[in-house]
C-alpha cells in the first residue's frame, strides 16, 4: 500500500467527521479522497467494528498525552516523589471470556 493509503487510514483514525462519512459510503468517500482502485477495494472490506474501536482508543491516547505533555526532569522527579509518598493500589484484571472468530 502507498503513503497515500496510510495517510487516509491516519485520517480515518483521527477525523470523526471523515470516519462517519466513510462508514456511510466507504467507496464513494475514499474515492473522493483520490485513492486508486486497489485502495478502494481494500477500504470497502474494512473491519468496521475495529475501525470504531481503534479510533476511540487512539482518541483516548491523544487526550492522555495532551493531559500529560512532556514536562521535563523536574516534573518527572515531582511525580516520582508523589508516587513514592502515595502509591496507587487501584488494580483490576480481566480476560475476554470467549474467542471471536
Amino acid at each position: 500500500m502507498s503513503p497515500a493509503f496510510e495517510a487516509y487510514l491516519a485520517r480515518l483514525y483521527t477525523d470523526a467527521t471523515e470516519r462517519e462519512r466513510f462508514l456511510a459510503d466507504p467507496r464513494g468517500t475514499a474515492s473522493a479522497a483520490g485513492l486508486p482502485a486497489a485502495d478502494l477495494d481494500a477500504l470497502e472490506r474494512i473491519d468496521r467494528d475495529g475501525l470504531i474501536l481503534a479510533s476511540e482508543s487512539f482518541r483516548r491516547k491523544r487526550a492522555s498525552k495532551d493531559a500529560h505533555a512532556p514536562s521535563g526532569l523536574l516534573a518527572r522527579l515531582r511525580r516520582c516523589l508523589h508516587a513514592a509518598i502515595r502509591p496507587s493500589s487501584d488494580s483490576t484484571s480481566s480476560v475476554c471470556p470467549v474467542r471471536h472468530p
Partner: protein
Amino acid sequence: MSAPRSDRFGLGWRPALAASILSNLDRIDVLEVMAEDFATPAARRALRTLSRQVPVVVHGVALGLASASPVDEKRLSVTARAVEAAEPDFWSEHLAFVRAGGTEIGHLAAPPRCASTIEGTARNVARARAVVGSAPLLENVATLIDPPGSDRDEARFVTEALEAAETDLLLDLHNLHANAVNFGYEEEEFLRAVPSERVRAVHLAGGRCIGVPGKAGASRILDDHLHDVPDPVYALLVETGRRFPGPLTVILERDGLFPPFEETLAELARARTSLEKGRAGKGEAAA
C-alpha cells in the same frame, strides 16, 4: 552492543515506579526506558547515572518504522542520543506506523501487512541502523482493527519484515494474545512460524475487554498496560521458553493503575518461573 548470555527479567521504567524500582534492584535484572523520555541533556545525564546502576535497554514508540514513508529524522536523532547515553545491549521499536500525511495518530497503528510495508520497514530500519549505530529489535503490535490493506497473516508479515530488515524480534506476548483472541487464530501458529533464532526479547503486559458498540456480547481485548498479566500470557511464556532456546530479556510493562510494588515483583517472579518451566519442558499451572 553485546548480547546477554542468560535470561533476564525486568520492568519498564516509569517515573511513578522509580523509588520502588531503585530500592529493589536486587530483584530486577534489567530496566527498559522509553527513548522519547530522554530528549534533553539533563534527562540523558540521569539515564547515564541509571545505566551505571543496572543494565538498561531502550524502547521507542514514536518512530513508526513500519511504513511506506521515511522515518522522521528528528525523532530518530532523539533515539540515537538515548541509546548513546544508555549503552544498552539492544534497543527496540514497533512494527507500527504512528503518523502519515502530516497526521499524528497518537499511538501505534498496525500497518497494512503487505509487501510495500515490508519494503518500507526495511528502508527505515536501515536508516535507523545508520543513525543509531545498530538496528532495533522489532515488536509485534496489538491491534483492535484487522489492518486494512493486508494480504498476508500476522505471522508471515512479522517473519518477512524481520528477514527484510535483517533484525530480530521483541515478542510481545500480550499483543500476540490480544490479536489471536480478537481475530480468531491460535497463538501457537504464530510461535511456530517465527524463526527461533530471531527471538531476543519478550514483553508481558495486561489489558481488558472492551465491548463492540451496538453488538451485545461482542468484545475485543485492548492492550492498555493497566492490568495484571493474564494467565494465558504466562502460558505463552512457558511455550516461549520451550521453543526459543536463546537468552531472552523479559520485560514486564505497566503504564498505570499501579498495584503495590510487591505485586509487581510477584508478577516478575512468576515470569521467571514460567520461562524456567518452558526451558525445562514443563507446562504452566494456573496461578
